[in-house]
């Protein structure tokens, strides 16, 4: 109680003393800062506000830029995350699959392959036309051999001209016969020889061709769709040429081949030789 009482008395005396002191203090001379100092401080204060940093004047641009950078970073991050599983799959791919991919890479593009085949076919067609013009007599005896090949291979040619090997089959048989004609052998002898051996040769030849064609189908397996698209105009024209040749050789099979061609390529313009 005494301490509280003393504290209260002390506070009272302090308050009274402060009041008296305050009255006396107000009578002291009122010192003021120099005017020059006032002006210097006010100028400093005004400059500080007026000279805003450049980035603060375009605060909205700063915010916009920050937002754009953040959005870009997030989108890049998400994009990377989406691509990551594919990459892992590539790594975990089985050995055969990887080899197949490597083979596919090593192989030429379908367009390049088609153009090369086109060139080869043109050369062969040229040879065949020359042979037809040079030895019209030889067409008769060959009709049997040609008939065999066309009956079976025309279907393959129409359905799958690239893989059938039909395109390369005819030129391989004809030049031989032409060479024989040119070398002076009688065509009849060849027909007789062909009667037994031609069939065997033909079968062997087809096996060889199918074996040659097999790797192509295996390696192209991954790009099968592209191969189907590779049936270019040149190949279709080549098929038409084959039919024309058949027609010129007097073989009635050309009609069947033409009908199949029309079924597979409806609306394709036919040359004059076939449109009659």
């Amino acid at each position, binding site marked *: 109680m005494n301490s509280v009482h003393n504290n209260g008395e002390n506070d009272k005396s302090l308050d009274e003393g*402060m009041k008296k002191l305050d009255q006396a203090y107000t009578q002291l001379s009122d010192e003021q800062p120099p005017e020059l100092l006032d002006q210097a401080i006010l100028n400093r*204060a005004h400059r500080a*506000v007026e000279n805003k940093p450049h980035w603060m004047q375009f605060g909205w641009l700063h915010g916009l830029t920050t937002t754009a950078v953040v959005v870009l970073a997030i989108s890049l991050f998400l994009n990377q995350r989406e691509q990551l599983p594919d990459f892992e799959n590539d790594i975990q791919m089985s050995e055969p699959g990887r080899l197949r991919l490597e083979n596919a890479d090593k192989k030429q593009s379908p367009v390049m392959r088609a153009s090369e085949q086109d060139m080869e076919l043109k050369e062969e067609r040229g040879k065949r036309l020359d042979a037809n013009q040079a030895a019209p007599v030889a067409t008769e005896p060959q009709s049997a051999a040609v008939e065999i090949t066309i009956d079976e291979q025309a279907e393959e040619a129409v359905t799958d001209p690239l893989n059938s090997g039909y395109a390369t089959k005819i030129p391989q048989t004809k030049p031989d016969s032409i060479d024989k004609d040119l070398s002076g052998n009688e065509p009849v002898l060849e027909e007789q020889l062909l009667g037994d051996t031609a069939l065997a040769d033909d079968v062997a030849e087809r096996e060889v061709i199918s074996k040659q064609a097999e790797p192509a189908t295996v390696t192209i397996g991954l790009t099968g769709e592209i191969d189907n698209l590779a049936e270019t105009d040149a190949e279709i024209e080549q098929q038409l040429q084959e039919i024309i040749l058949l027609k010129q050789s007097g073989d009635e099979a050309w009609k069947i081949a033409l009908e199949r061609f029309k079924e597979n390529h409806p609306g394709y313009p036919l040359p004059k030789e076939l449109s009659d």
Partner: protein
Amino acid sequence: MYAKELLVNSQHALGDLIRIGYAAFMREISDEKLMQRYAKGDARAFDQLYARHRAPLYRYFIRQVNNPATANDLYQGAWEKIIKARHSFKPKAPFKVWMYRIAHNHLVDHFRRLRPEDSVEPDTLTNTGPDPSKGAIENEQNELLRAGISSLPVDQRNTLLLKLESGLKMEEIARVTGVGRETVKSRLRYAVNYLKRSLVE
């Protein structure tokens, strides 16, 4: 000609009216809002704020060091710190407390920089009093009070001047000086008793 002069005069009158109206508007605004306005770029808010606190703050410094040149330096330095720290001001705290805290810290830094032999001595402070020509006009009691304040220990003088010049409460002085309320009260009591004795003697 008359119409032109009339137009110019009316423009001046309108400008004066706007200035007077704005000044009146500023006078009504609290220190805290003025500081906020200044922090947002309103330089005229600082003018008003400066006009309110220039004299007390200057007296706070000059009666601490009793040397006009040093007081000018300290005064300018303190205002520069206030200008720089304008964005850190929080309107929840009273502006006076914030401002005097900056001033007090600036003064403490100044005393720390002084070497022991340069430290403020009561005798020297008493000797470096006001202009003798002015002293003739001032009464003897004022002179004694000035000398008594100058001869107080630094902490007591600082606390007393904060009380007399800023009119801060004891709790606010405690926040400015970084000590407890009881310490502030004790320092004030010692200072008042000392000045009473010196004035009576």
